[in-house]
């Protein structure tokens, strides 16, 4: 069922585009925080590409998911790791795909458990449409013209050589 | 009343009879087998085709809970359960409230039971006053009132000297004494057999030595005093071997086992099933095998139900707090048949353990199906299987580890003294 539809640009190209969009806004105060799992890979790339000095953070949003009572804890739960000081920081949250906005909501909640940032921005590789919450990415490399149906799942994958690809799963 | 029981398979273990023939009952007696006596005009004909016709069952230990524990069961409920299970004679232990240690109480119980016109009841009197193990009871008076033996139920006598004197006194009159071998200290707080299961479940254990230590004392005192001793509810292979040895050395001691211990062992406790909280405890699988074999080879004389109705409140509590015991009057026959068929025994021999042998050990003139004997009869369908369920049990006690099990042998008719005291509804 895996396919690489032609309308998706290459993930590596998008990654470079995203970095270019973000570069003018990066300062020495910028803290990059990736959302597990695809967002962390992407954030690692951006962190290196943009030469960010604050250590890279990562978030697992499981503790704040709004569907816990229906689906329970997902396997492969990770600890959030925020080596940078969140209090007063200018945070850019990084995720691979922006969809309903619920993950971002949970990530913001998770982030605030660690302190009060001065500002929070969002950077994503792809906006697939289908928003259910008032969330908007400040940096977005690619927006689909037609929102994907709910039965389909678009996600970032990382090869053994570290290369990133977008993969569409489902009908 | 004259009853003609037609075409049944008549089994009388005492006379080693097993053949299809008719039985003729007149008044309270069996008056003929095979051909009708002259002028026999039946008031009632029972078609026993496909049924076994055997002596009414003799259950040597069943608690009726009266007096004192009527919330658990009553004479009315338990006597109905008895005849529904084909039991026509039963003996009950003295652990009622008050304890059966006074002639008046025994007379009252006998009288109450008699007015019900169901099974015959043979009480055992208390060996010591209040079962406290301090003062011996008026055994002669109690015997006159109707006690057939004396016992401590499951309360051991702590003071061995008292036990010695109690046996001496009983021996003076030749009264039988029934004792459950259980040390007063070893495992006294225990609730399960001391083995892997109790270890895993963290249940306070009762070692086999609780039984063997008590047996050593009892057997020695039986030898010394010459008392007629019956060992009640043997539970272990080691205990059974001691009884075997004592008999081999000439001691005339008898013993029994319960239907629970014949079919279950400690692993059946599963996840703390309170119905498997029994006294003595269910022991290991090898103990169970030894008991099954011992009953087959005659080392164990009798099988009994050890009927102990307990209400739900007494069982719906953690295992160690649950009251020990299981209901059994209605399961005696099915579980005896199950054992017999699993051991490959002839039906006559199987039934002997709950008829002729039971009557012999109890010292009563029942458990036989011969001309001239009281017409206490059990007619059952050996091929009918039924499921043990709360709804099917007449006993007020629904507490049995066998709930849900399919068992063979359905009682169709029970006669006591020539009267039909139980008749199964058709198609059940």
């Amino acid at each position, binding site marked *: 069922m895996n396919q690489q539809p032609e309308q998706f640009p290459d993930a590596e190209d998008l990654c470079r585009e995203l970095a270019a969009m973000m570069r003018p806004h990066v300062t020495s105060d910028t803290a990059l925080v990736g959302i597990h799992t695809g967002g962390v890979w992407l954030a690692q790339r951006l962190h290196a590409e943009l030469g960010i000095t604050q250590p890279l953070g990562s978030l697992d949003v499981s503790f704040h998911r709004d569907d816990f009572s229906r689906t329970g804890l997902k396997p492969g739960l990770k600890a959030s790791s925020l080596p940078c000081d969140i209090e007063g920081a200018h945070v850019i949250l990084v995720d691979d795909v922006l969809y309903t906005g619920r993950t971002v909501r949970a990530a913001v909640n998770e982030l*605030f*458990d660690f302190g009060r940032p001065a500002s929070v921005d969002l950077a994503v590789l792809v906006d697939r449409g289908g928003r259910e919450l008032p969330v908007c990415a400040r940096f977005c490399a690619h927006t689909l013209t037609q929102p994907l149906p709910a039965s389909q799942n678009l996600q970032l994958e990382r090869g053994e050589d570290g290369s990133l690809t977008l993969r569409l799963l489902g009908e | 009343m004259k009853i003609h029981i037609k075409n049944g398979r008549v089994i009388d273990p005492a006379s080693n009879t097993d053949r299809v023939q008719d039985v003729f009952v007149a008044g309270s007696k069996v008056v003929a087998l095979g051909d009708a006596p002259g002028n026999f005009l039946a008031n009632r004909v029972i078609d026993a085709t496909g049924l076994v016709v055997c002596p009414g069952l003799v259950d040597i230990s069943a608690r009726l809970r009266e007096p004192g524990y009527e919330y658990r069961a009553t004479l009315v409920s338990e006597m109905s359960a008895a005849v529904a299970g084909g039991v026509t004679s039963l003996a009950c232990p003295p652990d009622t409230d008050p304890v059966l240690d006074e002639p008046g109480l025994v007379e009252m119980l006998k009288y109450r039971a008699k007015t019900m016109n169901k099974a015959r009841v043979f009480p055992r009197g208390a060996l010591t006053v209040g079962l406290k193990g301090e003062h011996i009871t008026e055994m002669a008076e109690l015997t006159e009132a109707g006690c057939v033996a004396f016992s401590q139920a499951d309360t051991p006598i702590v003071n061995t000297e008292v036990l010695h004197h109690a046996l001496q006194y009983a021996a003076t009159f030749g009264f039988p004494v029934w004792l459950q071998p259980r040390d007063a200290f070893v495992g006294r707080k225990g609730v399960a057999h001391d*083995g892997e299961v109790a270890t895993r479940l*963290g249940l306070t254990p009762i070692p086999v030595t609780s039984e063997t230590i008590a047996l050593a004392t009892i057997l020695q005192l039986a030898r010394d005093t010459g008392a007629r001793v019956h060992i009640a509810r043997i539970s272990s292979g080691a205990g059974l071997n001691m009884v075997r040895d004592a008999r081999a050395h000439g001691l005339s001691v008898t013993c029994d086992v319960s239907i629970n211990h014949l079919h279950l062992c400690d692993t059946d406790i599963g996840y703390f099933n309170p119905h498997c909280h029994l006294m003595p405890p269910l022991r290991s699988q090898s103990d169970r095998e030894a008991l099954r074999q011992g009953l087959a080879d005659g080392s164990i004389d009798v099988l009994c139900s050890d009927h102990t109705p307990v209400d739900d409140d007494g069982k719906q509590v953690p*295992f160690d707090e649950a009251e020990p015991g299981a209901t059994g009057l209605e399961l005696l026959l099915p579980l005896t048949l199950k054992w017999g068929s699993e051991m490959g025994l002839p039906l006559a021999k199987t039934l002997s353990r709950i008829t002729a042998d039971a009557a012999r050990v109890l010292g009563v003139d029942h458990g036989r199906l011969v001309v001239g004997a009281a017409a206490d009869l059990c007619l059952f369908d050996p091929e009918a299987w039924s499921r043990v369920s709360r709804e099917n049990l007449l006993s007020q006690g629904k507490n049995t580890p066998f709930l849900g099990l399919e068992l063979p042998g359905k009682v169709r008719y029970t006669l006591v003294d020539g009267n039909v005291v139980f008749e199964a509804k058709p198609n059940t």
Partner: protein
Amino acid sequence: MRNPQLNGHGELQHLLTIEGLPRDILLSILDTAAPFTEVAEREVKKIPLLRGKSVFNLFFENSTRTRTTFEIAAKRLSADVINLNINTSSTAKGESLLDTVDNLAAMHADMFVVRHASSGAPFLIAEHLARTGRDHIHVVNAGDGRHAHPTQGLLDMYTVRHYKKDFSNLVVAVVGDVLHSRVARSEIHALTTLGVPEVRVIAPKTLLPTEVERLGVRVFHDLKEGLKGVDVVMMLRLQNERMQGALLPSRQEYFKEFGLTQEKLDLAKPDAIVLHPGPMNRGVEIDSAVADGGRAVILPQVTFGIAVRMAVMSMLAGH
């Protein structure tokens, strides 16, 4: 017989005992617990997984410490926690265990954390809830009689894995009153399920249950002999009442023969760690020098205990 703590999908419905739980489930509890350890280090030590849920701590036997750890765990998960010390309230008035449970269930409990002096009491509660169609209420065994203390067993495994990484090459000794210990039973089942190749029990014969070797352990009666080459020493608490009933002569003799001193600990591997479920009896089962020494991981156990209990409660509430 279906394991009553698993639901139809083989997921954890209740946590009643470690015995019989598949290894995968034990590992997933330990894996899940790891991220929860970090919650305590946050600015806001609270996450909303059990928000709006009511957790009843049903303690039929007093244990301030265990009750507190469950209370903290539930509160960090944002649950409402109601503590009931029943030995001082309703059973004294004659209310039965299941009547108490029915009453609390009618108050819309979502989870019962049960401590009871009788082995199997939490099973009775779980069965009762299932029989009465209320199996959406979860039961966590917080210690029943001598039978099980599964969260203690799990937090001990978490501690062992934290320091030793891998279970598959360890020698672990459980020392002390195994006979009366629900902790020992849960530890032994957890260790053998997780693949520890050698589990030892070390105790006088009066404090070992019959056929304990059937649980998969090697039996030692000599502490020095038993500690040789050991990676992990799991001490058990010795209750004072064991001096009654002729099980032991005196605290002094017990300490001399079975108390863990530095000298005896030196017989174990140089990097051996020492666990104790607490509360400790210093100078009875353990010498202060060991309890406060560098090999003791007794305080980390307490910290990990909160995370493990948070993980267990979250996993149950999510099924």
